[in-house]
């Protein structure tokens, strides 16, 4: 009897031991925050920023993308890898709002401007005085009901300063110009209609005397457009729709798309079932870029509606693609469709970085696009021809991009099917990288990409359209992609299309990146860590724990005392952080269109907030 008892005890002990090691091992998955280096930054001639679109840094930060080329590169170099660890807090400011803060602080003429999420207050802080007291506050008072049609948190991606005025959009679809000094309203134009489900969350772009604004509401069956308002009067100059007949899409004689599949008459109607283009999505809620030399604006178009592809057979032109238009007349010059008949809500609104690259001997004007579908596009910005497209993370939804025809090659056993859940689609609906823009350093020639690593289960169903209500037609559950890390910060060499270094992150990265001439890259994590890493090696140099998750754009500016300051606003939210900012219940994995299943632990790791942090080197 004894022998049996002690045999029993022994087995009990070793099973307990095994259990302990198993859960221990799962704890220290590969250490987050430490970079794995794959190669070195390209020596010799590498990509540089186009001089017209990316003028020398004057210490100000007048638009979210820093310059028309959307480099998010600051020319200041007082802060360098050597002294960045000695950064100290200069001052803070609370925006008194708790939704996702995705905008950057703007700095011009020694004044900092902050635009908050709903109810979209605009603060002006006087940087000359210690503690930057508030000069004035402008309250646009947007309609409260607009919160009911804002699909992915009531965010605002930023305001823009241009010759004396601050331009910004409100959630209920108005574009407002405010005098930068007095804080008085100059003009206000109503562009969107919340009854149809339209909201505006993007940062406008001021170029060629025009304020360019696009709508959001792809999930509400809103028909997407981009509009240009006269900078002085706010009157509508032109509006180009992204679906419908050619006259609505402002397609005329100048329109020469590079690939045959994008050529044809009234494709905005022909590639849709009848009448479906009227509720077909294709909103513009992301980033625009402008090339002053050619006077062309570039922007990406959002996903077609509804998410259920079977309900909109055809290529669904002109959604999920890139338009180049003349800034003054809005006439389309070329278009490239990234994902015809989009299957997984891969809006193509990501940032478009203009650059010149060495191309057999001479300089070729291109654009870099780390797209949502997971491929890093390098395209000639005069014609839209795809020069190269390599995946910058794990992708199994698509097999690749055929460079001859420019067509993306889908992986048909991941095609969504009504009535049956398709599992393990990577990247998930938010894409390999969502709206949070990357930064490009002409000094190192690398593009610094804060992105996520998520896969999803996708169950399509028939969507019912009622204007002003969500028109999605899919149940989604997202979860961490291969490797178990839900995010990654990748330094990408656009010429040789390969990773230079990559930092795996536990939570998805939803904050834009900032790179400085001093060779330091700044980004924030969703649980509130603001990190500085070496632009060449990716080694972490310094980090600071903010009060809430960071999804706002960090900036670097020269203060009135000539010193370099780093500033950002911490306030978790957006699609990824809605589980915290909208107080959602994590027992429902399909919440926030499936994102809750991927970030069930976020409510334990951060709370909502809206706090400005400004750092500088101690005297």
């Amino acid at each position, binding site marked *: 009897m004894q022998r049996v008892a002690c045999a029993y005890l022994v087995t009990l002990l070793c099973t307990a031991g095994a259990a302990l090691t198993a859960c221990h091992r799962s704890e220290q998955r590969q250490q987050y925050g430490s970079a794995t280096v794959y190669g070195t930054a390209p020596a010799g001639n590498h990509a540089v920023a186009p001089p017209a679109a990316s003028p020398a840094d004057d210490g100000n930060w007048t638009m979210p993308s820093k310059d028309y080329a959307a480099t998010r590169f600051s020319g200041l170099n007082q802060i360098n890898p050597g002294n960045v660890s000695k950064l100290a807090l200069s001052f803070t400011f609370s925006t008194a709002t708790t939704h996702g803060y995705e905008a950057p602080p703007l700095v011009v003429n020694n004044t900092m401007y902050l635009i908050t999420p709903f109810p979209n207050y605009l603060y002006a802080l006087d940087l000359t005085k210690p503690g930057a007291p508030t000069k004035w506050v402008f309250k646009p008072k947007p309609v409260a009901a607009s919160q009911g049609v804002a699909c992915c948190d009531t965010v605002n991606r930023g305001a823009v300063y241009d010759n004396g005025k601050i331009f910004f959009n409100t959630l209920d679809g108005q574009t407002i110009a405010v005098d930068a000094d007095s804080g008085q309203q100059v003009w206000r134009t109503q562009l969107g209609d919340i009854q149809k489900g339209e909201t505006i969350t993007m940062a406008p772009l001021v170029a060629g005397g025009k304020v360019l604004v696009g709508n959001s509401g792809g999930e509400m069956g809103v028909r997407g457009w981009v509009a240009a308002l006269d900078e002085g009067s706010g009157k509508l100059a032109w509006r180009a729709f992204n679906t419908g007949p050619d006259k609505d899409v402002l397609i005329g004689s100048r329109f020469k798309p590079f690939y045959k599949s994008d050529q044809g008459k009234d494709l905005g109607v022909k590639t849709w079932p009848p009448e479906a283009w009227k509720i077909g999505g294709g909103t513009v809620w992301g980033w625009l870029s402008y090339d002053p030399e050619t006077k062309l604006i570039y922007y990406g178009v959002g996903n077609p509606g509804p998410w259920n592809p079977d309900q909109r057979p055809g290529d669904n032109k002109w959604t999920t693609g890139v338009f180049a238009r003349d800034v003054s007349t809005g006439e389309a010059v070329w278009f490239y469709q990234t994902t015809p008949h989009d299957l997984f809500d891969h809006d193509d609104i990501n940032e478009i970085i203009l650059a010149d690259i060495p191309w057999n001997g001479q300089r070729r004007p291109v654009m870099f696009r780390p797209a949502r579908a997971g491929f890093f596009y390098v395209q000639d910005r005069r014609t839209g021809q795809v020069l190269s497209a390599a995946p910058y993370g794990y992708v199994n939804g698509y097999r690749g991009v055929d460079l001859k025809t420019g067509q993306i090659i889908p992986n048909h056993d991941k095609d969504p099917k009504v*009535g*049956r*859940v398709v599992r393990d689609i990577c990247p998930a609906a938010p894409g390999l990288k969502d709206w949070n823009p990357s930064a490009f350093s002409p000094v190192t020639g690398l593009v610094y990409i804060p992105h996520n690593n998520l896969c999803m289960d996708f*169950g399509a169903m028939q969507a019912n359209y009622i204007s002003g209500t969500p028109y999605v037609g899919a*149940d989604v559950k997202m979860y961490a992609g291969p490797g178990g890390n839900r995010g990654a910060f990748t330094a990408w060499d656009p010429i040789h299309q390969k990773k230079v270094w990559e930092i795996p992150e536990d939570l998805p990265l939803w904050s834009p990146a900032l790179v400085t001439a001093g060779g330091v890259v700044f980004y924030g994590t969703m649980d509130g860590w603001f990190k500085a890493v070496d632009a060449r090696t990716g080694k972490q140099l310094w980090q600071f724990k903010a009060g809430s998750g960071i999804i706002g754009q960090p900036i670097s500016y020269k203060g009135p005392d000539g010193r370099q300051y780093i500033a950002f606003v911490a306030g978790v939210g957006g699609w990824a952080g809605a589980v915290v900012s909208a107080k959602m219940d994590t027992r429902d994995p399909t919440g926030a269109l499936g994102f809750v299943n991927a970030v069930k632990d976020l409510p334990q790791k951060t709370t909502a907030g809206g706090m400005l942090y400004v750092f500088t080197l101690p005297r």
Partner: protein
Amino acid sequence: MTELERVRAEDQRLAKERQRIARDGPKLTGAKLEARLERTWRRPPGILGWLATVDHKEIGRRYIITALLFLALGGMLSLAMRLQLAQPDSNLISPQRYNELFTMHGSTMMFLFAVPVMEGVAVFIIPLMLGTRSTAFPRLNAFSYYMYLFGGLLLWVAFLLNIGPDIGWFAYTPLSGPQFSPGKRADIWAQMITFTEVSALAAAVVLICTILKARAPGMTLARMPLFAWAMLVVAVMIVFSMPSIALCSGMLISDRLVGTQFYNHYEHGDALLWQHLFWFFGHPEVYIIFLPATGFVSVITETFCRRPIFAYPVVVLALISTGILAFGLWVHHMFATGLPRVGYSFYTSASMTVAIPTGLQIFCWLATMWDGRPRFQVPMLYVVGFIVTFVIGGLSGVIIASVPLDLQLHDTYFIVAHFHYVLIGGAVFPLLGILTYWFPKITGRMMSETLGKIGFWMLFLGFQLAFFPMHFAGLLGMPRRVYTYPAGLGLELPNLLSTIGAFVVATAVGLFVVNGLYSLYRGAIAPPNPWEASTLEWATTSPPPPYNFAHVPVVDSKTPLWDAEGELPVVTGLRVDEKETLLTTVVAASPDLREPVPAASLWPLILSIAVAVFFISSIFSPWAVLFGSIPCAIAAAAWFWPKELNRNPEPVIT
């Protein structure tokens, strides 16, 4: 003490022992023996004795009466349906009520009448026909009846409370799934299946063991009556088919109660999983109903043609091959579900092949009639009615076995006609015949011949009037289970005729019941063998005493009563003061063991009540599965608690 002396001493001790204990009461004969056996085998008195009986005749009688009650209830439902369908666009009955009606009609007829009545007749007659005193596992037999009774009560009480099922008797998912059948209607149906399936399995085990181990000595397998063969094949089919429906109804209940994903096509479950599992049980089920009827026809034809069934081995092999083939053709119920066409051709040929054994059986019956001298009393009339009606159903079955034809005829009134021809024609006609045939054995009274004949002709003609027009209704495009149909499609006449026919059939069945009840009190007193039949059940009195046979008979031919000149040779040596029966070997039926027959006990009833509470409460909460099983375990333990065998061993009678 040498070995020899020791053995001799042992013999003397046993011999003295034998004198002291009354064994087969060599001194007891005739009335005294029967009185003594009566006192041993009598049912304990009073209501508790009535509930605790394990006498297979009591349980068989209850099975038959309950099943006939459900036949009447199901029949009334069909009359209500026929009234609603008498004219086009009628709103006599609301759609919801009509859907409940046809679901209850189907479920009652299939699960609460057809299978139980066959088991009931078998449980009553098989021990008598095999010449033994009791079935094997008599308490399990009692338990089987109570489970069947509680299953029927569950379904019908729910129907009266307006929470009856409205999902059809085969409850296809996803209509019967959690989303499209709110409330507890579908759960009650699925739990009724669990009840009847446990009862059928129990009865099948009882029948298999009785047929294989309790036959009269000398009744080898080759001399066993054809009805016993039919019930053996049916019991084995029950054992192999019931688990399939237990599985799918269990999965349906867990889908509906705790949200598992078995039939959820979104989470890679499949709506067709239900159909495959259901019909894998479904088709053997209809043969479980039909094969006993072939046994009945063989018994009646043999007796009324005054000669054994022609080609006995062919009929036996036909029964066995029908039993086996029945498991290979369930997909012919699913020809319209878009499965691969090549697969369908296998099932077409399997469905055609199953017609051959039945065809051979029919030839053998006709040959027996041709070679014998048939006397057309009521049972034989039902056999002739069976041949005329069932063969139409069988041939329409061959028609719908072909895929292209079934694609037009599936789920139309052509199918309703087909299965009524094979089920009423194939099973109810022989059943009414055999009830008339064995009524004297069960009640001791003869049923009236004139009332019987009137009833037969009314049933036969009423049946053709009711169900033949349904073939045309199907061809004219009337789908199954529609609570109404528009005017102008030519469906008015067939439906009107069917309604009239239905009422004629109802009166005919009513007449049969009246004939039964009347004969119960004023029928002629039945001698032991009124039909001069050949099988052993006619060797005892009508109704048989509790112990069936004073002495277990010995058999040496297929038709013992016809071949035994004087008295049947018998076996002596079974105890008189204890309930004891004789077990014989499986093939040769040579005497093997003396088996003590369990006394009457209330535990089967108590266990079935506990199981009923367990099943019904697990419709409402998953915790019932845990807490409900404790009383069941206690009752089962009490039932199987070993009785200490204080009696000393008995020498084997050589």
